[in-house]
């Protein structure tokens, strides 16, 4: 048997998809201009990097870890990609510098968590602050400017560039979704996230898998940073602040259990889109935009509360 066992509670992800479709439908009625290409494509392009980060975070959380340093990693990768571009490197070099930076930073987290057996929340809290502040000390707020024309939108022009960004993120997400159900490597992640000791006794090596999770998270962060950087004419060193919370929120709203071992990647796509359509919805419905964060918080709390109520009920049935 290669694939994951059937989802014990598909309604959890299903309900998010239903809510997403309802919100999009409501948005379509109340503000039809949201679905015009001039608004839809830029929106989807801005969501693409978040989807990649959330996908990486999905595996980290399923493996019962957390990574709150992704925002700072994202900033480092963006700035390095920008520097490589402004130094005139060809595209493979730019991409490699961002991916390698992400991989190295993720591996550092992985080493500290898996090698030293330190709690991931504390480790990534420390690397979040250290990475952010060291970048600030280096750049002193200075943007990376003078990017060559071949950098923005990969030199393809805006509309084609947007298509590429969206297609790249969506394709990778889809491959990982199928892989997460089909490949045994990803089943090991579920196993370690459910019960690391049992996984070890079954012959897996939890420390290696945990290390791999963080390294993979870094790699995806590097890619997301590149896809995000091509949208602009310069690179802001402050980019990515708060990205970790956006990603964790999307994963949790998408039905993944924060205590590990449970969740499906397709729920994450719905979670990312649901949270991302909120600011646009507020703008199009002419609500005060300052409510965004409060509503986002309410959505997260509702999502986790729903899980809590469901768990309490199913426990009641067992008794």
């Amino acid at each position: 048997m290669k694939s994951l066992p059937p989802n014990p509670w598909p309604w959890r992800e299903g309900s998010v998809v239903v809510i997403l479709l309802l919100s999009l439908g409501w948005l379509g009625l109340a503000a039809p201009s949201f679905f015009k290409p001039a608004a839809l494509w830029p929106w989807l392009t801005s969501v693409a990097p978040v989807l990649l980060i959330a996908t990486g975070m999905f595996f980290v959380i399923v493996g019962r870890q957390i990574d709150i340093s992704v925002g700072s990693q994202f900033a480092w990768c963006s700035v390095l990609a920008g520097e490589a571009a402004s130094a005139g490197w060809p595209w493979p070099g730019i991409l490699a510098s961002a991916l390698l930076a992400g991989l190295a930073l993720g591996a550092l987290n992985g080493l500290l968590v898996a090698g030293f057996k330190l709690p991931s929340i504390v480790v990534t809290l420390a690397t979040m602050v250290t990475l952010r502040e060291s970048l600030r000390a280096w750049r002193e707020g200075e943007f990376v400017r003078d990017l060559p024309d071949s950098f923005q939108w990969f030199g393809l022009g805006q509309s084609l560039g947007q298509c590429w960004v969206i297609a790249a993120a969506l394709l990778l997400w889809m491959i990982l979704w199928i892989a997460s159900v089909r490949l045994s490597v990803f089943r090991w992640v579920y196993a370690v996230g459910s019960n690391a000791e049992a996984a070890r006794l079954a012959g897996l090596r939890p420390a290696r898998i945990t290390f791999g999770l963080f390294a993979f998270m870094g790699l995806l962060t590097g890619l997301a940073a590149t896809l995000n950087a091509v949208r602009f004419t310069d690179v802001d060193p402050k980019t990515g602040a708060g990205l970790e919370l956006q990603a964790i929120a999307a994963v949790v709203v998408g039905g993944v259990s924060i205590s590990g071992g449970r969740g499906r990647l397709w729920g994450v796509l719905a979670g990312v889109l649901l949270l991302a359509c909120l600011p646009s919805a507020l703008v199009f419905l002419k609500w005060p935009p300052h409510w965004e964060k409060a509503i986002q918080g309410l959505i997260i709390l509702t999502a986790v509360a729903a899980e809590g109520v469901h768990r309490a009920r199913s426990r009641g049935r067992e008794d």
Partner: protein
Amino acid sequence: MRTPLSGETGRHELVLMAFLAAELLLFSFTGRRFATAENGFEILRVSVEFGLLALVMTPVILTGGIDLSAGSLLGLCAIVLGKLWRDAGLDPGWASALALAAGAAGGLLNGVLIARLKLPPLIVTLGSFSLFRGLAEAITQGVDNFTGFPDSFLLLGQGYILGAIPAQVPIFLAVAAGLWLLVHRTPFGRSLRALGYSPEGARFAGLPVGRNLILVYVLSGAGAGLAAIIYVAHLGQAKADAGTGYELLAITAVVLGGASIFGGKGSVHGTLLGLAALAVLKNGIALSDRPSEWVGMATGALLLAVLSGEAMLKKMSARVPRSPTRDSTSMPSGSP
């Protein structure tokens, strides 16, 4: 009652004290006017706000929980205070009391979700982190800034007692002393540690697990409310971004102070030492004319160094066969 872990925590505190001494020695050479009484009081004054958050974060972490919403709640309480005073025309004293109540109510929300619905604290307080900050932004529409508080109120954050001691320091010391007694000298405090070790065990031992958990988060919320009052009186203004990132500083101080993030281990005096190490680092770097970014880098590096150093020590001592006397003070096997 001494905690079963007093041997281990004692060693950690010695390391921290040595580090603090090294910091003081280094900065008294590199810093301008570092080793003066005025600077000592200045360090205390600027660390009271996040210090209060760290103090009330200690019992939370003892239970194996975490409160990421503390900084956001500080911001919300500051806005509640400013709004009630300026727009509802309340006396600053009453507005402060209601801000404190708002903090406790925010903590109650966290506590009920965590204890009654049995949700993970990390994710609940991540949600309320967004919710509280978002409410503060919604109330102020992102731009409103409350200033012009009466001098009698500002005295709380800017005045001096006996000519030299900042007015907020006695409040901080009173909270620290009260919390120390609560955590280390009462059955309630002991129950928190039991809860952190094993929630199931605590339940089977007949402890009121749910009630105590809720109380811990209400205490954390009220602490954020008190910190907000002092913050507003100290800076003379209340904006929606008040206290951004303070929860991370507070957690760092508690973990530096020797608490285990998995719960069951930690102390109020350890947190105070961790706080002192952080506050002196911040002040010393500024007085040594180094850029403020160094503070964050040094804080993160310090946290990692302390944790990995301890992990390595544990690994090394695990290889050496233990003598029976050391076994009696070691952690029970099977705990996280």
